[in-house]
């Protein structure tokens, strides 16, 4: 296994493990305030210290991982669930009116800066984790539609597709039976990368107060709350920052590693 793939698995796995574990166990209750214990540096009792309300940072990071991963996962799910079928349809109808409509609609979404529109959406619908998911998910649709169409087009020129057409199969059936399985690896890689972008976007929205609402801990809001304390207790800013950085880095490494491992052309070039 290559180093990047290994590191990616390790970091992403760590975040996933923390999120999973937080469902059943955290060192402290994250809704429990202990103002007398506020802004303690890391110690044996509080491994990553406490924040300005005396909450245990380690527990907060664990639950925050859950929020981030849940939001990003569902957002990627929305993007794939809608984007992949659209991309497949566009590729099947290459050059036709359906292709034109789908791809121009994609261009339209792409034309807006994603985070700004996400802010607009959450501002209009009210800040919540669900609305953050919707906002991030919408911007994942054109990404998946384009990647799907782009990798499906060369598949459509292959002889086995023609053979399937001679066997009387329709476009939808061919897309599902032949095209989708053969582009799955590309989509998996893209999903990993979109997942990391989703975590970043969630952190960004939470930072400006439009993501998950208190008392649900979120890495982005932890950063925002730490802003004024950073000079007093640097760890309150560093810890959530590092959590975001390492998770996103891990997912990107994982995506790159998977791309290399799954793409036979790159495998030979090493």
């Amino acid at each position, binding site marked *: 296994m290559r180093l990047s793939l290994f590191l990616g698995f390790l970091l992403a796995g760590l975040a996933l493990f923390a999120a999973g574990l937080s469902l059943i166990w955290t060192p402290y209750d994250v809704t429990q305030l202990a103002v007398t214990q506020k802004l303690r540096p890391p110690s044996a009792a509080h491994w990553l210290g406490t924040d300005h309300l005396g909450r245990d940072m380690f527990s907060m990071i664990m639950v925050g991982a859950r929020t981030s991963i849940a939001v990003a996962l569902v957002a990627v799910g929305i993007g794939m669930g809608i984007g992949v079928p659209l991309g497949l349809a566009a590729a099947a109808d290459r050059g036709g009116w359906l292709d034109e409509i789908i791809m121009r609609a994609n261009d339209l979404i792409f034309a807006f800066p994603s985070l700004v529109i996400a802010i607009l959406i959450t501002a209009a619908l009210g800040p919540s984790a669900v609305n953050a998911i919707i906002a991030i998910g919408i911007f994942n649709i054109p990404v998946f539609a384009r990647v799907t169409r782009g990798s499906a087009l060369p598949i459509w020129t*292959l*002889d*086995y597709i*023609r*053979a*399937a*057409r*001679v*066997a*009387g*199969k*329709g476009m939808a059936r061919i897309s599902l*039976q*032949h095209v989708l*399985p*053969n582009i799955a690896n590309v989509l998996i890689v893209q999903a990993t990368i979109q997942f990391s972008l989703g975590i970043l976007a969630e952190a960004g929205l939470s930072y400006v107060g439009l993501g998950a609402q208190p008392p649900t801990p979120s890495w982005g809001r932890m950063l925002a709350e730490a802003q004024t304390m950073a000079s007093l207790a640097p760890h309150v800013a560093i810890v959530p920052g590092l959590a975001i950085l390492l998770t996103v880095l891990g997912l990107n490494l994982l995506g790159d590693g998977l791309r290399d491992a799954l793409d036979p052309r790159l495998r030979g070039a090493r």
Partner: protein
Amino acid sequence: MIEARKLTVTHREQVLLHRVSLKLTPGKITGLVGESGSGKSLTALAMIGLLPPGMSVEGMIDMQGRNLVGLPESVLAGIRGKRISMIFQEPMTALNPLMSIGEQVAEALHLHEGLDHKTALARARERLDRVGLTAPRFPLSLYPHELSGGQRQRVAIALAISRRPDLLIADEPTTALDVTTQAQILDLLRGLVRDEGMALLFITHDLAVVASLADEVAVMQRGAIVEQGPTEPLFRAPQHSYTRDLLAAARSMPRLILSAPSPALLEVEAVSRSYGLGRSRQTGPTPRIKAVDRVSLTIHEGEAVGLVGESGCGKSTLTRLILGLDMPEGGTIRLAGQNIRAGRKIPAALRARMQVVFQDPFGSFDPRWTVERLVAEPFHLTGRPRDWRERVAEALYDVGITGDALRRHIHEFSGGQRQRIALARALIIRPSLIVLDEAVSALDLRVRTQVLELLARLRVRHKLSYLFISHDLSVVRQVTDRVLIMRQGQIVESGPTARVMDAPEHSYTRELLAATLQIPDKYVG
């Protein structure tokens, strides 16, 4: 004089080339023949020092007293191009699409010979003239995409000979070209060897090409040279059994089946299809090319009809129209009396009477499906019978694939086996007509002969009609009753195969026949 002595190439314990010795004389052409995977290209790469990393070489490459094996890359780089040069099968990828042809030829001269830009360009002009791309029609400012395949191969040759190498290695340089273009390129190479006095190592799988070109022949099998010698004696009296096999395959003729008069199965009447040429930003109508221009043809039940033409003649478009994958702009296509319209409107029962086998044994199958599922795919048209597994096994047995093939994936099979599986897939729903779109073109000689014989057998057993599409007249001669010659979207000549081959009426047919290489009669021992 360049000589390879006992060249052995190994890759992780595996011996890829075994004690290959070749003597390449200035002014002589040496043909290196063998089937795919026999080590021909590896021999060439070893000689020019371009083996993939991880392979180790033993033995000696003696270039005028100097051993090239083991020289550092920096020294070898100086020898490549200057002393040894190479051209490849695919001329498109050998040229830089963003550089004009003149600049590409001049660049090598400028970089390595130290010529100033103007002199280099003048020399490039002279080299391009020499390969037949003469001044007024082919200015130095042309780009590769503005040239045909044959012209690009000429540019690649001009590049290779720009610094007057002692040895030119040509790896299947005409395999991707049409027959008439191939004849011209072979003429050019012959002339270059004579005029420039260089040695030419010509790698090919095609015995007819070697017979018409080479002074000496070396036959390779499984990484070793099994026989070598002057061309004529080698062809006349081959010593090694493998050479005899190859020659027998090249000369074999499946017995011709003459079909009795029977009702028409496929009737194509005045069918046309044209395509827009590119997207023009200017106003006005986009130029259109008539890919198929009022073509009519009839295939009777049980008849094998050949359709011959060079690339771009419209035979692929015609195939797509017949298969109902594309809409004709005019004319009608009838199968068993019923009209064919493109798309899903073709009734399944009608579509089931027609199946296809494609050229590329690698692209014809979904790599993720098992053979069982692949062969059963056409059952989509008829509904899957309860005994479909037995039917699949039976169809595979019919084409000579036995054993545990059903659960395996396509990458586990060789090219010849894949074409057999493609035939099984076409046969599974017992169609009346099978369209064979260059179905044997990508196969090695011996495998090709076997598949052709199989086709002849199946035709009798299942009362099949074939539409046999090919660029190769000699293959068509072996298996068809009637032949159609297509050029620029039109059928220029048609008639019984033997008549068309022996007494062609149209000038283009004569041209094609003249360009088709055959092993000369005098070489037959």
